[in-house]
């Protein structure tokens, strides 16, 4: 297996790996896993004023899994919660050159973030929609 430099960098030093202190307010979390694909991931998002202030993850899986979780957490940080509705793991896959046979693992991260989203929706009592019905956020 060959790994790109971006995978290498994030796998070696996943800056957003970890947990948010239990006492922090406004934290939602969600897990996704697939035993057959050998992947488990958990995201924690700290949300305040409709903005994702911090995103943290834990992951079990291959280097692409770890790097993708880190990429997604970074991407989410600083974005409004609506970003969760627009998130497309294929963007992470492209940025990290994840081989096609591993895309299934990344979909489990969508699952985990969907759980986060539903938790936020449940808290707020409404649905999170993409702000512009499909336009992608520019990468920051």
């Amino acid at each position, binding site marked *: *297996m060959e*790994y790109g430099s971006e995978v290498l960098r994030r*796998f070696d030093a*996943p800056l957003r*790996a970890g*947990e948010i202190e239990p006492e922090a307010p406004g934290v939602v979390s969600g897990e996704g*896993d697939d*035993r057959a694909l*050998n992947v*488990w991931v*958990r995201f924690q998002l700290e949300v305040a004023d409709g903005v994702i202030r911090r995103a943290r993850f*834990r*992951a*079990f*899986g*291959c*280097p692409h*899994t*770890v790097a993708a979780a880190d990429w997604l957490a970074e991407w989410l940080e600083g974005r409004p919660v609506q970003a969760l509705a627009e998130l497309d793991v294929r963007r992470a896959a492209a940025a990290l050159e994840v081989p096609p*046979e591993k895309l299934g693992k990344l979909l489990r991260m969508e699952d985990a973030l969907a759980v986060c989203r539903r938790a936020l929706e449940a808290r707020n009592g409404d649905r999170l929609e993409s702000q512009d019905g499909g336009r992608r956020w520019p990468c920051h």
Partner: protein
Amino acid sequence: MSEEIYLDNAATTSLDPRVLAAMTECLERNPANPSSTHAPGRRARRAVEEARERIAARLGVPAGTIVFTSGATESNNLALQGTLLHHAERTPHLVTTRIEHKSVLDTARALERRGVAVTFVECDADGVVAPERLAEAIRPETALVSVMHVNNETGVVQDIPAIAALCRDRGVPLHVDAAQSVGKLPLDLEGWGVALCSMTAHKLHGPKGVGALYVREGMRLAPLLHGGEQERGLRPGTLATHQIVGMGQAYELADPARDGPRLAALRDRLERQLRAIPGARLNGAPERRAPHIVNMSFSGVDGESLRFAVRDVAVSSGSACMSDSPEASHVLGAMGLSDALAGSALRLSVGRFTTEREVDEAARRVAEAVERLRTLAAGAPAWCSG
């Protein structure tokens, strides 16, 4: 990037400088075709025959029993196909095990598709094949039993003397894949009564692309390749003098009595440190292993990530010829390991040029990586720990 450490000597070894010197001298000074009858041809032939004698002497067998091939893969194919494809029985039967090298397993499966009956005998949780299981599998039409001496993933040593004895009792020839054992463990092919034995040079600090099949006197075999009378008609093609000379030199340099204990000491030093890592599990019967291999699983850690985390230590999951494929090891699977545990397995193997400093440093890096990955996966479900 930290300093590279090579602990994958079961996949292949670096060339011993003395082997390189012998090969270079041959390439420079002995360029003719060993089948040519002119003087330079006869010089090349002499080099080939001297190498054959050196190898035979190391193994304690007559020189005429050594047939040169392109490696153990070809030797295994020649042994199995050569015995079974042209057998007098209409449906000959092959007995082998679930934990053989792919070149035996795939050949056995190809033979199955061509009408050969095959029994794949299981191993136990320690990777040991019980001779009684093999004995039970033998039928009147069994044409060959094929069992590896040392498993390339776990290093587990099968009880070839006992297996050879029971094959002799039942009148069935025994083929032994000794790719991982020659030069590291004592072999007594003629004393044990082995009929065919596969060898290769590159696991013993010799060149890649050359090996041999020991063919006991009187054992009949059909060739795989046709054309030319080389190697008693069993293996045509221009003999690669420098490769054969390299193999001869490598085999002469290897001495199980001296190298075995040295390798075992290094391996034990490495193993001690790896076993100290929490959640570490040794794969393969601890007391029945070849001196150069240790195979460990680490619960709660993904194998691919572990290998990537310690990427400056060259190690292996499964065997090298499978390391491109994501499937878990068939050997660890046969031993009953869960996919997760099998997936987290590292095979580390030491060689003649491995140092104590290297194994210490490698163990340190593995320990660090396991800890880091476990932290990264804190809170993961139980199945991740196998």
